[in-house]
């Protein structure tokens, strides 16, 4: 009998550790002689630093050292540009300005680190922050995106001629040539404000330089331990072999933990090396709001040309994108917006132009969705307004524009964030819409329930939206699979894990290939000592890229197992089968050898290993997809708005989702639930509010509202579709961001429908009860 774990709702192998408080998070580390660091951060959004006096801090008992930019010497360097602008885009300009470890002459956002205090405890380090005196010369702050490019505006970077960080134009067809043929033109200004990822675990780093062994060990809440290892080796002038980076259990990532190098990430290892003692820094929640990257502010001026039947002829969109004070993450986010805007629809003509703006705010890098929610918002809103004008239902207008299933692979002609032309590998959109309509009982609601409830004075509404998501991009990930003498299987992969169930899903894949009990498979992620080639966990790519690497490595080990077993059992390979951690001759269950025994034979202490044979039952494999796998979905919801308070209750929420082959449906649903909650937070509760001086007014969980158990959908029904991706052997597509991408667009459509006010048009995210009252006035 063959065991099959792939596709099953397997309970997670990592749960017992997490449920009993035994899982190691970075802040749980206690090393002998460990020092702790607190950062003095800028209280101004924009100011020159005239002088820093740290002498009093140094005198405080328990303080070991205080560092400013001056003390860093040659180590003071702008951080690396993580993602260069796509060389494949023709009309592009980009000004690289990356963050530094400690601000030198000028601060550019509230929260920018100026000095690091190292002390025997965090309590003492924080006391000493108050001893430091900084002489600032405040400057006007660049906050408003639309004013940042006006002449005579103060410059965030003095050496540039304006606050323009980048400018990109991408085009498909010729919008200007077809505009005149349109029956209808829908033109709107649409904006999307900043939100924060707010992983429950704040960032943190522990670095331990051991002078005797000349080894640096770093524990980091990063989503990308291998690039951190490589970068630290380069910055500190060490060989990669001297640096081990471990991302242990990480309490939520959602994008900002893929950013590197944060100032603290450059500094803490350097300090440990200076003092030859372990050093710890753990971010507090206020620092997390001020100094962890965030995302989403864009302002679009968009227009859509349509026929009177509701067919899209073309789209013209010009938008501004806020990158904050620096732009280390290149153009990933705005290019995602530009590309994802096109959605599952056939848009023959597209003109898209964006400007990226430097402002005096924290740096912008991907947050779950990474520019896609904004693109989807623009497209879905334009379709909503067009449908209203043409008297179509939201479902109808979308159906009329879906790319038909025989058009795949579908080429969109513009360049995606992975530098490759945007091509949808596969998809089947109309059935997803049909299934969503059925699950939400659209017809019944609109024809029977809604009129009844409305007659009773209740404001109930329905919405439906669709989207695509480019997932699982390259470059590559690796995995090493080893069968040990005990018969246990170990899997090591470089991607970090922040709750995605990698310990279970990767084990499911390997257990199936090797036909072992899943509890005999032990997965290690995010420890560069165990796997030192790879990239990281981002862009919904863990399962697509690392999952396929695990699969390839397991297949290679299986080959080795069969080859050796064939010699031992003296039977050709094709007569053998793997079953229950052993190999046997088909039909002769007694003629068998266990995997553990084979592992011992593959690694003998005496005798000769045949030339060309590698020792052990081990294989490493890498997987790099040529381009991303395109997932898609349809979300629908029924909401009720209380007209007195504008409280919105989500009575029913339906997701029909196609992420190709599903390894563990329970895990996929969990990812979708969490994404939806974040999307709803984004739509109605969460907003990073900056005042004119660039002060963040919402830097605590009292002011920045996360959705609670009351604010999320009462019920989420999920319908899975499976259009396997042809781009990878497992046929999987990513799913990590799927919930978050369309939720806000859906939320506002349903709220508009509930409020039955023909004049109400929601053109901005987030909404809030206050803002709704204002719009209805």
């Amino acid at each position, binding site marked *: 009998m063959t065991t099959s774990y792939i596709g099953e709702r397997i*309970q*997670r192998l*990592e*749960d*017992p*550790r*997490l*449920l*009993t*408080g*035994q*899982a190691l*998070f970075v*802040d*749980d580390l*206690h090393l002998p002689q460990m020092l702790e660091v607190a950062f003095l951060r800028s209280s101004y959004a924009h100011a020159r630093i005239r002088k820093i006096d740290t002498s009093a801090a140094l005198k405080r*008992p*328990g303080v070991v050292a205080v560092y400013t930019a001056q003390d860093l010497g040659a180590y003071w360097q702008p951080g690396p540009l993580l993602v260069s602008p796509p060389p494949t885009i023709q009309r592009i300009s980009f000004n690289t300005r990356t963050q530094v470890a400690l601000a030198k002459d000028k601060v550019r956002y509230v929260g920018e680190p100026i000095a690091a205090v190292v002390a025997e405890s965090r*309590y*003492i380090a924080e006391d000493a922050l108050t001893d430091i005196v900084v002489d600032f010369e405040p400057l006007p702050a660049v906050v408003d995106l639309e004013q940042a490019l006006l002449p005579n505006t103060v410059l965030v970077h003095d050496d540039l001629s304006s606050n323009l960080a980048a400018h990109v134009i991408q085009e498909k067809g010729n919008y200007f040539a077809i505009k005149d043929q349109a029956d209808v033109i829908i033109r709107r200004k649409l904006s999307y404000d900043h939100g924060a*990822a*707010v*992983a*429950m*675990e*704040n960032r943190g780093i522990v670095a331990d330089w051991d002078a005797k062994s000349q080894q640096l060990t770093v524990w980091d809440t990063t989503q990308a331990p291998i690039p951190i290892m490589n970068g630290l080796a380069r910055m500190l002038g060490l060989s990669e072999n001297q640096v081990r980076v471990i991302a242990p*259990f*990480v*309490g*939520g990532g*959602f994008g900002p933990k893929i950013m590197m190098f944060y100032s603290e990430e450059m500094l803490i290892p350097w300090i440990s090396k200076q003092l030859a003692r372990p050093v710890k820094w753990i971010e*507090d*929640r206020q620092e997390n709001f001020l100094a962890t990257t965030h995302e989403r502010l864009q302002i679009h001026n968009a227009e859509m040309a349509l026929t009177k039947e509701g067919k899209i002829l073309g789209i013209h969109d010009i938008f501004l994108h806020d990158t904050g004070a620096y732009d280390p993450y290149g153009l990933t986010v705005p290019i995602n917006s530009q590309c994802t805007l096109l959605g599952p629809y056939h848009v023959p003509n597209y003109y898209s132009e964006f400007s990226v703006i430097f402002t005096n705010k924290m740096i912008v890098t991907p947050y779950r969705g990474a520019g896609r929610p904004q693109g989807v918002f623009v497209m879905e809103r334009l379709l909503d307004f067009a449908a209203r004008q043409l008297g179509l239902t939201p479902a109808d207008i979308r159906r009329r524009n879906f790319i038909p299933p025989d058009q795949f692979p579908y080429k969109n002609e513009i360049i995606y964030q992975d530098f490759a032309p945007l091509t949808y590998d596969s998809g089947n959109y109309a059935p997803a819409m049909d299934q969503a309509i059925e699950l939400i009982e659209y017809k019944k609601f609109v024809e029977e329930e809604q009129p009844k409830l409305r007659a009773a004075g209740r404001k109930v509404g329905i919405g439906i939206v669709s989207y695509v998501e480019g997932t699982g991009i390259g470059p590559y990930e690796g995995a090493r699979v080893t069968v040990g003498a005990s018969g246990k299987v170990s899997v090591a992969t470089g991607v970090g894990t*922040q*709750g*995605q*169930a990698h310990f279970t899903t990767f084990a499911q894949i390997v257990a199936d290939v090797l036909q072992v009990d899943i509890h005999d498979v032990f997965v290690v992620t995010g420890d560069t000592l165990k796997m030192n080639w790879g990239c990281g966990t981002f862009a919904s790519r863990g399962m697509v890229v690392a999952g396929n690497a695990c699969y390839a490595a397991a297949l290679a080990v299986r080959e080795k197992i069969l080859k050796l077993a064939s010699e031992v059992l003296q039977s050709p390979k094709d007569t053998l089968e793997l079953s229950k951690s052993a190999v046997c001759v088909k039909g002769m269950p007694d003629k068998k050898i266990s995997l553990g025994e084979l592992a011992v034979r593959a690694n003998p202490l005496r005798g000769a290993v045949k030339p060309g044979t590698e020792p052990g039952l081990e294989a490493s494999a890498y997987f790099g997809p040529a381009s991303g796998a395109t997932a898609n979905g349809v979300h629908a919801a029924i909401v009720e708005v209380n007209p007195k308070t504008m409280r919105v209750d989500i009575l029913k929420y339906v997701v029909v989702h196609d992420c190709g082959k599903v390894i563990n449906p*329970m*895990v996929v*649903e*969990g*990812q979708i*639930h*969490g*994404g*939806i*909650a*974040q999307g709803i937070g984004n739509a109605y509760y969460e907003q990073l509010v900056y005042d004119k001086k660039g002060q963040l007014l919402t830097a*605590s*969980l*009292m002011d920045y509202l*996360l959705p*609670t*158990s*009351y604010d*999320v*959908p009462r*019920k*989420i029904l999920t319908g899975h579709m499976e259009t396997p991706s042809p781009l990878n052997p497992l046929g999987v597509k990513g799913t990590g961001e799927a*919930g978050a991408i369309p939720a806000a667009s859906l939320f506002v459509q349903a709220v508009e429908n509930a409020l039955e006010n023909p004049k109400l048009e929601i053109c901005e995210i987030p909404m809030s009860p206050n803002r709704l009252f204002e719009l209805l006035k």
Partner: protein
Amino acid sequence: MSNLFPITVTVNGTPYHREVEPRLLLSDFLRHTLGLTGTHIACEHGVCGVCTVLLDDRPVRSCLMFAVQANGHRVTTVEGLAKDMEHLHPLQEAFSEKHALQCGFCTPGFLMTLIAFLHENPNPTEEEIREAISGNLCRCTGYQNIIEAVKLAVSKMNAAKGK
């Protein structure tokens, strides 16, 4: 700064005598002085519930208390719920079965809040469960599966009582 106060706190049944600064938070005392790192902290301003422990069987936010205030009291942390990983509390089992945790960082706080809640209200309705966890933030799960897990735990605990 050597004004240290001697305190005795009984954590998960073990009495600990320590000398602490009066400003030391209970959360830091548990995590750093005693090394019981299962209790997590995420905001240190009382909003998220991640740091919840039981003080004499009632849920408290350990980031909002000083260690000296726990002097002479009993504290239960997540480490006190199960003998080992093979013998989970029914609530822990239900969390795993219903996939009520992803990164697991918030989970100790939810468990401790719910232990106290289920003690007070062993047969809650769904709305009561929703209310009971409304002071705990989770950024990963969207809460649906947490509510399902509590329902499952209730039936498990009732079945165990019935035996």
